[in-house]
C-alpha cells in the first residue's frame, strides 16, 4: 500500500513588517532590496507566539483538515531551529495540545531549514514499517536575524504540519531522495542569539549544489523529467534563489509560481518549503504531480515526488488556506517589530 499525506495544516502570524520600514532604519534603498531579494514583506510573530504555539496551531489545522482521531497518531516530530527550550521538547507540547498523548513517540528535529522534511521522512519510515498508523511532521520557526544583517529583510515566522499515513491520502509520496554533505554555510552556536552565515558561500556550494543534486537524484530514482511535473517547490530563503534553481534544473516559472510564497511571507525556515507545498495543495487538481525539495544549511536537501489524490477536494476547505492566512495583516513599524522580537 502506498504512503503519503493524509492531511496538512498551516499557521502564519497575522503581524508583518514591510521591507521599506526595515530599510528606513538602516539607510538602505528599499527598491534595491526588493528587486535583489524579491521579498516585499515578512510575517512577525505576536509577543506571545513562538515555535511551539505556531507548531500547535499548524498541527490543529492539520487535524481539523482530516478524519484522524488524534489518539491514532503514533509519532510527532517538530523540526525547527528556534525551539523555545534548549532542553525540553516542543513536540510534547504539540502532542498534549492536540490530544495525542500519552501513547506515542515524539522528538524535536534540528537541521536548519530542512528539519521539517527530515521529520516527514522519519514518519514515512515508521508508517512503512507498520510501527505507527499516522505520524505528524511539523516545520515551525520564528527565525532570528541580527539587527542590520541582510537576513533581517527575510527572517519570518510560520509553521506547517503534515499528517503522514497510508489511509485516506490526499497525496501519495512516490519516493524521496536526500543529498547531504558537511558544508558550514550558516550556523548558530549554542547560547548565541543570532546565526552567522558565509555570505555568498550560502549560494553555489550550499543551496544550489544540494537542491540540484537531491532533485536530480530523485528524478533519476522515479524515472521522471521536469516536464512530468505540474508544480515544483523549493526552499525559499528569498524569491530569487528558487527561481534560479528552477531554471537550472529545467523547470518553468509556471511550475514554480503557485508554491512561491516567500515574496509576501518571508523565509519561515523549517516551514518554508512546507508552506510552499501547502499553497500548491490549496489549488492543485487531483492527479497533479508535485516535486518539492527542501534545503537545510549545514547542509542537505530532501526531495519528494508527490501525486495529488481525489480526496483533496473533500478535505481542502476544512482548514484555512495559505492565502487566507496571509490576509488580515497588521503592519508593524520597526520599534514594535523590535518589541515583538524581544530586541528591546
Amino acid at each position, binding site marked *: 500500500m502506498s504512503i503519503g499525506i493524509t492531511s496538512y495544516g498551516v499557521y502564519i502570524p*497575522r503581524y508583518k513588517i514591510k521591507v521599506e520600514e526595515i530599510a528606513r532604519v538602516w539607510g538602505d534603498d528599499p527598491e534595491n532590496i526588493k528587486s535583489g531579494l524579491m521579498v516585499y514583506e515578512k510575517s512577525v510573530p*505576536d*509577543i*506571545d*507566539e*513562538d515555535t*511551539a*504555539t505556531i507548531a*500547535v*496551531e499548524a498541527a*490543529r489545522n492539520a487535524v481539523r483538515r482530516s478524519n484522524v482521531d488524534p489518539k491514532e497518531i503514533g509519532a510527532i516530530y517538530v523540526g525547527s531551529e528556534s525551539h*523555545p*527550550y534548549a532542553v525540553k521538547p516542543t513536540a510534547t*507540547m504539540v502532542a*498534549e*495540545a492536540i*490530544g495525542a498523548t500519552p501513547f506515542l513517540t515524539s522528538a524535536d528535529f534540528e537541521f536548519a531549514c530542512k528539519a521539517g522534511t527530515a521529520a516527514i521522512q522519519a514518519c514515512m519510515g515508521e508508517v512503512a514499517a507498520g510501527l505507527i498508523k499516522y505520524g505528524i511532521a511539523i516545520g515551525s520557526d520564528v527565525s532570528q536575524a541580527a539587527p542590520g544583517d541582510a537576513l533581517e529583510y527575510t527572517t519570518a515566522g510560520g509553521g506547517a504540519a503534515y499528517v503522514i499515513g497510508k489511509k485516506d491520502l490526499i497525496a501519495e509520496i512516490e519516493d524521496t531522495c536526500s543529498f547531504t554533505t558537511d558544508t558550514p554555510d550558516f550556523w548558530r552556536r549554542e547560547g548565541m542569539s543570532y546565526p552567522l552565515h558565509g555570505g555568498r558561500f550560502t549560494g553555489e556550494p550550499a543551496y544550489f549544489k544540494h537542491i540540484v543534486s537531491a532533485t536530480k537524484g530523485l528524478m533519476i530514482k522515479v524515472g521522471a523529467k521536469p516536464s512530468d511535473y505540474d508544480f515544483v517547490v523549493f526552499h525559499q530563503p528569498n524569491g530569487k534563489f528558487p527561481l534560479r534553481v528552477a531554471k537550472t534544473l529545467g523547470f518553468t516559472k509556471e511550475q514554480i509560481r503557485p508554491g512561491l510564497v516567500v515574496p509576501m511571507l518571508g523565509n519561515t525556515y523549517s516551514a518554508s518549503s512546507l508552506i510552499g507545498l501547502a499553497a500548491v495543495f490549496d489549488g492543485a487538481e487531483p492527479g497533479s504531480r508535485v516535486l518539492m525539495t527542501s534545503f537545510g544549511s549545514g547542509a542537505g536537501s530532501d526531495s519528494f515526488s508527490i501525486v495529488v489524490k481525489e480526496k483533496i477536494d473533500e478535505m481542502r476547505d476544512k*482548514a*484555512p488556506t495559505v492565502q*487566507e492566512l496571509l490576509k*488580515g495583516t*497588521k503592519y508593524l513599524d520597526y520599534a514594535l517589530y523590535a*518589541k515583538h522580537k524581544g530586541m528591546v
Partner: protein
Amino acid sequence: MAAPRFWRHIPARYNLIGTKCLTCGEYYFPPRTTCPACRRAGTIEECKFKGIGEVVTYTVIRSASDAFERQTPYVLAIVRLEEGPRLTTQIVCDPDEIEIGMKVCSVFRKITEESPEGVICYGTKFMPRGDLNE
C-alpha cells in the same frame, strides 16, 4: 509559577478540559470534582469545551505585574463559553478592537514565563472569530 503547579493545569489550560454534571447538565470550567447544585446526587464527567464564546466584559491592562509587563497594553476579558461557563482570559487583539458581545475563539499562546531561565507557561487565550476562517 512553579513547574508542578503549571503542569497540574495543563489539560485545562491547553485544551479547555472542564467538567459536566450528568445529573443536572451544568458545565464547569475550571473543572470541579463535585457538582455544587446536585452534591452527592451529582455525577461529574470530564468535558472538552469547543473554545467558542462571547465577550461579557473586558478591561485594558496598561500597568501589569512583572510577569505580564512586556505584553502591555493587553485586553483581559470575561468570556462566556458556548456551553455556559465564564472564564477570565486574555483576548489577542488591539485594545481598540475589543467590544462587549464580540464572538471569540480559542488560540494557543504563551501565557508567561518564570524568567529567561525558567519554565514557559503555555495555554489558551481567545481571539476575535473570523481571523482563523472558522
